[in-house]
């Protein structure tokens, strides 16, 4: 079932690392302007789903359609230039480059991708903290600052879809709150977001729709409100 107008349509992908299969036919859709969340415990395949979409770990079966075009098997740089911006879980920046250089390199690398709406200035408006750190090497930033820089760097590529892999992981609660506000702001500005999270509260506050993964397959899909309002369901799907 391919809905009309889906920005991203992941169709029954199966992905393995060598011989160990991780995904068993995962299908998800993301529509323009939506914030979709992949929920699930550690090791259920959230990161692998993201990596499969980006072409970093290509699926051996199934298809990834971007604006109706089959991008399965494309090298990651082409996927990135097509308008998919990936913020990985380990949120590593380029440690030997300054904050400014990290951003500059990203906008050059992504040339030809998407609409040119993000400039370094605009990104600094979004993350004012980074403006104060322009000349500092990425390696000397705190965890929260690195997370901001990773998101900012990805935005410099002018993505139409932002894939955020566990952005809240390992950050202090106050930093997580701040990050949530920034992501909400990006969504208000019209950016489409696919969020992979373990932090249920954090993601339900942002998401329109939710997919719950379990052991490499979909366990549930539906509006975020269904989980928000139904504690029993939430407990059943996600209790540790």
């Amino acid at each position, binding site marked *: 079932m391919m809905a009309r107008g889906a920005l991203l349509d992941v169709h029954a992908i199966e992905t393995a690392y060598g011989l160990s299969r991780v995904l068993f036919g995962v299908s998800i859709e993301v529509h323009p302007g939506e914030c979709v969340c992949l929920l699930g415990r550690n090791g259920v395949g959230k990161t692998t789903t993201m990596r499969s979409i980006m072409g970093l770990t290509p699926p051996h079966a199934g298809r990834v359609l971007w604006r109706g075009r089959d991008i399965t098997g494309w090298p*990651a*740089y082409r996927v*990135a230039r097509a308008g998919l911006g990936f913020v990985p879980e380990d949120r590593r920046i380029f440690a030997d480059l300054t904050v400014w250089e990290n951003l500059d*390199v990203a906008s050059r*690398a992504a040339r030809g*991708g998407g609409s040119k709406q993000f400039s370094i200035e605009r990104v600094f408006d979004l993350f004012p903290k980074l403006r104060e750190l322009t000349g500092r090497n990425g390696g000397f930033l705190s965890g929260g600052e690195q997370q901001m820089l990773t998101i900012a760097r990805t935005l410099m590529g002018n993505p139409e879809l932002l894939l955020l892999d566990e952005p809240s992981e390992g950050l202090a609660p106050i930093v997580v709150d701040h990050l949530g506000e920034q992501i909400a702001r990006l969504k208000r500005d019209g950016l489409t977001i696919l969020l992979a999270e373990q932090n249920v509260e954090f993601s339900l506050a942002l998401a329109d729709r939710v997919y719950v993964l379990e052991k490499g397959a979909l366990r549930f899909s539906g509006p975020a409100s269904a989980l928000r309002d139904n504690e029993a369901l939430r407990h059943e799907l996600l209790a540790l």
Partner: protein
Amino acid sequence: MMTRLGRAPWPLLVVALALLVPAVGSRFYTFLANDVLIWALFATSLNLLVGYTGLVSFGHAAYFGIGAYTTGILMKKLAVPFVLAFPAAGIFAGLAALVFGFFCVRLTRIYFAMLTLAFAQIVWAICFKWNEVTGGEQGMPEIPYPALDWMDRLPWVGDLRTSDHFYLLTVLLVALCLWALRRIVGSPFGRILTTIRENPERAEFIGVNVRRYELIAFVVAGAFAGLAGGLFGIFNRGVFPDFAYWTKSSEVLIMTLLGGMGTFYGPPLGALALILLNQQIVSYTEYWPFVLGTILVVLLFVFPGGLAGAAGIVSRRLARALRA
């Protein structure tokens, strides 16, 4: 005090000092300095791969050799003037790097290194066997010096020997090449190479076509190695197959590591140190490779950043001490 020292135009001072060597030093020191300069360029070209892009090549001598043969054959057999034969070394070496690199960048890490080595051995074998063109095992002696008559008419340097004139030309050309390489690594292109060195996958998903950038770096490094080779053939008064042999590749790799691949001026420093060490130790003992090996092991363990890294640490400590 330290900041004022840091702001001094160091590269210009070094060039000026280098130009003075024939006037103040003996013929031997000029010879040594010429050797150092050419290897400094060779090592810096390798550093573009090892230090800046994170690609360890075990076969960089291939391009050095191709450059040397190009200039040598053009000048000796075809009487092409140096102004054309020298850039041709860079062009031919760059073209060879384009062909070999096309395959090499498809592999990573040790496989990349082994393939660069394999291609270099092929180049060596061709130089060794292709008698009609390369002179085969005997090599090609008596490469002519470039026509530098115009230097005779210059004040001060007019009465110097031809080899000194060639040395002065080497200083200028190496300085020019190093300046160009410095511009390259400081450019946005150089920063993209840095992202590849730090993490190729991460570079890839921000949109960098990693293989293409690696190939460009490979070609640029090969071209500059070729230029170094072109100069070396003339300096050496002959071109021989061992220019492309794996021992040359390892020598230049050692210089790069010894000097410090983390910095731009590390490899030239490594070239200077290795050649001087060689010269000194050889005059004391026939077991110089043993002594050299020991020195290298100690250096690599104590100063993994090489000589340049060590100098950086010392100067920062000094700066802090002076400020306190």
